[in-house]
């Protein structure tokens, strides 16, 4: 069995499962946020439920519209806060946490071998830890909150093998943008991606989170990594409970295998209006930008802020550009402060925000207007994603975004910061 099949079988109480079969799966954690949680609570009540299945396994994270953008969002959070209090579930409020997909791993709430369902499509981020994690809608999440289980169609797995070692200024974001462009935005629909190979073993955890995060942009249900020493080191001191590591069997059957040679890969830039529309940064050079965003569940990790700071240190954001930096969590914010990264950003003329999803879905803290162009480390450049439907969004890694912020045009980071 593949990694995904092994985890699902273990949670369905079966010796084995086959792709295409419907399995009734126990979940280790059910998550929702202020963006989709209110409908879950309403559906929870409509189902006639009075209690969640296990308060220690249900978590609500306020991240999309916080600190509250307006009266409606304040009241949404208020209703969720009340539900959390009444049910005794885990609740992360403003100032206590950050973006859900950053803080659940950080707080050791998601562990290898887990099945996690979340009311957000980027729930697949936790695949970086060797968990089977997938996004669902509000009603599915309500069901999982009540029963501690969900139905799943066991996905086929797509085996992705990355050869070589990525060059300087190339990281997880570039690998995944390149992958989505090769597979296509629905090329992995209903499938689980399994990331392997020399390049993957060499990647830091932050880069693995970035890659797993964007599995959904190829239509995938989940994107999984094997557990190795880096995973264990990350979990050291974080894990809240013991965990059982699963791994793919040697003879596992995959729907397909794709191989990538990454040693010659350039930093990638996804052109409007699709994450599956990436090219090497050299093809994007000279495109003028109005805004540069560094952050989100995709690239708001400490490693991302370090990469951006390396480029921005001692330099100035171009007068025609607004640069917005959003650390993924309070822990990362604090660490970035201790390392002097925040000072680098502020001195460069960038705005540093409290952790929030904010600008990524055009919610607040940096929406873009008609005719404006934004380069961003986020995950989607759909029409209207960050504000006006007449704005253009380019996606890239944090170093490319930082370098572009300095020049005012999309540029390779080596042009700004050297090798």
């Amino acid at each position, binding site marked *: 069995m593949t990694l995904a099949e092994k985890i699902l079988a273990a949670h369905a109480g079966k010796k084995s499962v086959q792709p295409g079969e419907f399995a009734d799966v126990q979940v280790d954690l059910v998550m929702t946020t202020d963006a*989709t949680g*209110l409908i879950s609570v309403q559906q929870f009540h409509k189902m006639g439920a009075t209690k969640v299945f296990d308060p220690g396994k249900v978590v609500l994270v306020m991240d999309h*519209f916080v600190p509250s953008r307006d009266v409606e969002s304040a009241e949404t959070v208020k209703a969720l806060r009340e539900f959390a209090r009444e049910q005794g579930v885990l609740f992360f409020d403003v100032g206590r946490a950050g973006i859900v997909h950053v803080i659940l791993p950080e707080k050791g709430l998601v562990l290898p071998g887990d099945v996690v369902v979340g*009311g*957000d499509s980027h729930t697949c981020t936790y695949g970086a830890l060797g968990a089977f994690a997938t996004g669902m*809608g509000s009603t*599915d999440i309500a069901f999982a909150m009540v029963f501690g289980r969900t139905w799943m169609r066991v996905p086929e797995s797509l085996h992705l093998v990355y050869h070589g070692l990525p060059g300087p200024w190339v990281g997880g974001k570039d690998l995944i943008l390149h992958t989505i462009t090769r597979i296509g935005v629905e090329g992995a629909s209903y499938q689980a991606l399994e990331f392997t190979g020399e390049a993957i073993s060499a990647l830091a955890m932050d880069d693995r989170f970035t890659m797993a995060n964007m599995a959904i942009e190829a239509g995938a249900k989940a994107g999984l990594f094997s557990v190795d020493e880096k995973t264990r080191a990350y979990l050291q001191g974080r894990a809240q409970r013991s965990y059982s590591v699963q791994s793919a069997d040697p003879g596992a059957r995959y729907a397909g295998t794709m191989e990538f040679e990454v040693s010659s890969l350039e930093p990638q830039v996804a052109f409007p209006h699709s994450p599956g529309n990436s090219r090497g940064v050299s093809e994007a050079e000279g495109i003028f930008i109005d805004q540069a965003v560094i952050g989100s569940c995709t690239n708001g990790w400490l490693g991302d802020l370090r990469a951006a700071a390396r480029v921005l240190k001692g330099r100035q954001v171009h007068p025609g550009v607004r640069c917005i930096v959003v650390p993924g969590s309070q822990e990362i914010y604090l660490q970035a402060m201790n390392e002097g990264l925040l000072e680098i950003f502020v001195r460069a003329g960038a705005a540093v925000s409290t952790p929030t999803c904010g600008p990524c879905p055009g*919610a607040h803290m940096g929406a873009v207007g008609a005719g404006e162009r934004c380069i961003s480390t986020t995950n989607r450049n759909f029409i*209207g994603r960050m504000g006006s439907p007449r704005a253009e969004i380019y996606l890239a890694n944090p170093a490319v975004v930082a370098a572009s912020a300095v020049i005012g045009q999309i540029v390779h980071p080596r042009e700004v910061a050297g090798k």
Partner: protein
Amino acid sequence: MIRGRARKFGDNIDTDAIIPATYANLTDPAELGRHCMEHIDPGFARRVSPGDIIVGGSNFGCGSSREIAPWAIKGAGVSAVVAKSFARIFYRNAINIALPLLECPEAAEGAEEGDSLEIDLLQGEIRNLSRGKVSKAAPYPDFIRELVTAGGLVEYARRLLGQAGRPTGGREK
């Protein structure tokens, strides 16, 4: 039997197109419906007649997990969506809230804006009355049919809770 006019869209209609995230604090379907497709087809919500059927291309509903996407479509008065293929989370969400989806490349490609369509959900048949064509959609897997027959996931859950009390319910097979 569902009857309505075809409202045609292309491939990869994402959830930000169906309903921008900025409306995530709304929960009233009618209110959500007023913003349905506003980024890619301004005025859609005003032009759509109750019962109309959205006809999409491939990967319809890709992107976010936001359930307000199918709610907005329902709230706009749309009775069903026919597409070449659907994104996974959107598919679940629509089934869960009893918005009928039919996966049928032939019917999706063959229909033009304004065509008169008739859908027989039990048979999985899509009849294009304007063009005199009948197409068969991919059948729902058994478990999905069970959910649809129950009237969506909330009703299904109510039955489980009613039968077995909380939280021992599970799928009976």
